[in-house]
């Protein structure tokens, strides 16, 4: 077996490209026709432990159970809120799924239209009916800070390998940051620090496909932060 390691086989593929016909397993973003695996979307080919999959470069956020997201209240009902989570589907938040005791019809006293919340995707069924919850540690309504929106496909890059990138930004800029899987990022802290953190996040989005990004982001933040710190 002379299967090359995934780090070397990175290439851009477009829908319809042949990925493999030598017995790898089909993963995300692929389909099988006549026993051969083809790409079904634009992305980067990734071979990992016998499975070939596509890391998407573009596309809308599709919720998956367990995802932490940032949502905005879009509509209020007597026993639920509708949350915009930046996906093609509306996400209802039921009163049982919030950390407060809400009387029927009293929903608008707790969350109003335009409010931003941290939420977790509770469930997604096969017809893409979604439910979100705020009953989890750390989930709350956001009262201050700033929201940055990036392409959701770049989120993993902002977080970095086991959180290295985001940890570095947090430490260096002294900001509180929450990254939602749907591409919305909440940043809070001293106004100047927030600006630097936001710029750093935008830089990651812009240069997501390049190597040694962590190093360059570090240099970028250092160059911006130094004057005030020293």
């Amino acid at each position: 077996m002379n299967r090359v390691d995934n780090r070397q086989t990175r290439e851009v593929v477009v829908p319809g490209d042949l990925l493999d016909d030598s017995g790898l397993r089909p993963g995300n973003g692929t389909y099988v026709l006549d026993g051969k695996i083809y790409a079904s979307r634009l992305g980067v080919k990734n071979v990992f432990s016998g499975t070939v999959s596509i890391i998407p470069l573009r596309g809308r956020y599709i919720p998956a159970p367990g995802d932490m997201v940032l949502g905005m209240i879009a509509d209020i009902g007597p026993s639920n809120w509708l949350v915009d989570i930046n996906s093609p589907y509306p996400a209802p938040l039921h009163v049982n799924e919030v950390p407060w005791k809400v009387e029927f019809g009293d929903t608008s006293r707790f969350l109003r239209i335009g409010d931003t919340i941290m939420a977790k995707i509770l469930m997604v069924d096969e017809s893409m009916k979604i439910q979100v919850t705020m009953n989890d540690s750390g989930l709350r309504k956001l009262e201050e800070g700033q929201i940055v929106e990036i392409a959701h496909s770049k989120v993993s890059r902002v977080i970095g390998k086991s959180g290295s990138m985001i940890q570095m930004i947090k430490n260096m800029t002294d900001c509180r940051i929450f990254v939602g899987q749907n591409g919305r990022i909440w940043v809070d802290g001293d106004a100047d620090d927030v600006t630097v953190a936001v710029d750093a996040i935008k830089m990651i989005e812009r240069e997501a496909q390049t190597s040694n990004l962590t190093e360059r982001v570090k240099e970028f933040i250092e160059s911006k932060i130094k004057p005030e710190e020293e």
Partner: protein
Amino acid sequence: MSGQSNLELVNKKGIRLGGRKAGELRDIKIEAGVLENADGSAYVEIGKNKVRAAVYGPRECHPRHLQNPTRAIIQCKYNMMAFSVSDRKRPGPDRRSVEISKIIAEALEAVVLTELYPRASIDVYIEIMQANAGTRCAGLTAASVALADAGIPMRDIIPSIAVGKADGKVLLDLNKEEDNFGQADVPIAIIPKTNEIVLLQMDGNMTREEFDTAISMAVPACHEIYELQKDALKRRYAAAMKEVGADE
């Protein structure tokens, strides 16, 4: 089709008006990702045709009654700009553009994995900025590149081209004069991987033999366009990928 003229469309040596041979395509240029605010976009030039396509979605389907609980729907809007033809085209949808929108949406539905996004809508907008025969093919060619650019899962990219008959000869990729004064116009779109035909119309008359010749000219031409479509997408994203490696 309509109109008679003493214009010689194909000369005795078999050379056409623009200097092409019977089986030759016009110059084609394809670019992906030309619009900032669309989820995906593409620009296509086939000869003097200039076409732009934009894709939005999958997004929530409005009006709600169009939603399909098992799959996404594709809504396409083909529009010719007022200045796209030599006589001003009266703006707004007309019988012709409604028909073209429908057949393009149906051709795209054959490749897009719509079952992944129940109840959603994928919106395709095709704007013809300059028309010179074969705009529905150019539009479909652009739309499928734009769909891929939007990161929408699909089985393959669709190339499309017209064949026809003018001066009694079967010709590939008719231009305006050949279309107006010729005898037939046959737009074709295929799925290159399987050679399935997803769009086929015929305006005018051809014999069975001429039709077979026409199809056998169009299929290789479609594969040629397919390569250009893939190249356009790869060009857009490969530049940034060159340095990828160690990190991550």
